């Protein structure tokens, strides 16, 4: 603590990683890929009762270029999978993904020819939320897990 003692009050020393990750995790702007019924729960999660903007996700940016978290909510068909992947590719790094609901995680109750059995077949998912549809509290829990992941597992060195 020699440096801090020498500098006196009004100064704080930290690592760049901690500072940047603190900023990133508390301002996670989601890109809602609201496909089906989980999309309605995602709207409720952004709504007045389970307000997610108090966690920093103030705006739901529908533009992939301005967001850093993609929440895939609902079952993804083979036809839609290409569009979802294109949007994922358009998001700038660093980016994370939540597979919300049983249908996005594993195909859910829809075990048929049209539905991709889990978006992790073509997207790198960071958090899976179970439920059909999951309560908004569960999605907030997933968001908090992503915030933990950013704080502990991410580093500015990866950005280079």
């Amino acid at each position, binding site marked *: 603590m020699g440096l801090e003692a020498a500098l006196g009050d009004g100064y704080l020393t930290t690592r760049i990683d901690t500072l940047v990750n603190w900023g990133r995790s508390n301002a996670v702007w989601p890109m809602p890929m609201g496909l089906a019924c989980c999309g309605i729960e995602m709207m409720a999660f952004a709504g007045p009762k389970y307000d997610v903007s108090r966690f920093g996700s103030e705006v739901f940016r529908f533009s992939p270029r301005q967001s850093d978290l993609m929440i895939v909510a609902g079952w993804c068909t*083979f*036809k839609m*999978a*290409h569009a*979802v*992947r*294109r949007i994922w*590719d358009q998001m700038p790094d660093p980016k994370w993904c939540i597979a919300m609901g049983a249908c996005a995680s594993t195909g859910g109750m829809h*075990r*048929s*020819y*049209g539905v*991709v059995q889990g978006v992790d*077949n*073509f997207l790198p998912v960071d958090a899976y939320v179970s439920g059909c549809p999951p309560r908004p509290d569960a999605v907030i829990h997933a968001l908090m897990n992503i915030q933990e992941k950013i704080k502990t597992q991410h580093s500015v060195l990866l950005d280079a």
Partner: protein
Amino acid sequence: MSLPEFFQNLTLDLKNKFSAAIQDISDYQGDVLITVSLDSIINVLTFLKNEHRFIYLCDMVAADRFTSEDRFEVIYNIISLKSQKRLFIKTRCSEENPTLPTSTSIWPAANWHEREAFDMFGIQFEGHPDMRRLFLPEDFDYYPLRKEFPLLGIPGSLPLPSTTPDSKA
């Protein structure tokens, strides 16, 4: 059987005009279903629309009977708003030649219903202005709702996107 009066008059009228084409008339729990032969289906439907004012096409159902003859059947669900009655007309077609004449000239609402029947069963409609698949992409080669198509699909029939992004895009 004891049909309500409106339907008794209607079936008498139909039998007078198209005696050979009407194959069967059944009534289950209030739903009156009339089976018509394939070659006179358009005449029967036009007659019902013009003379008996069945102007609203509610739905078209295609089904697979999985029999060796007359495999597919199509059921028209039509409503007469003037008399406040609903009627079902059924017709059948074979597997070798699953073609029906289009009813888009009678009711333009049949457009997407016929596309859906084509998409799911492969039933062609002659004279349809836009015969394409409705739900599945054109690259898909199968007709999913036929009984021999497996529920989980055929692996590889619908490709997944590649996980390595294209460098040119």
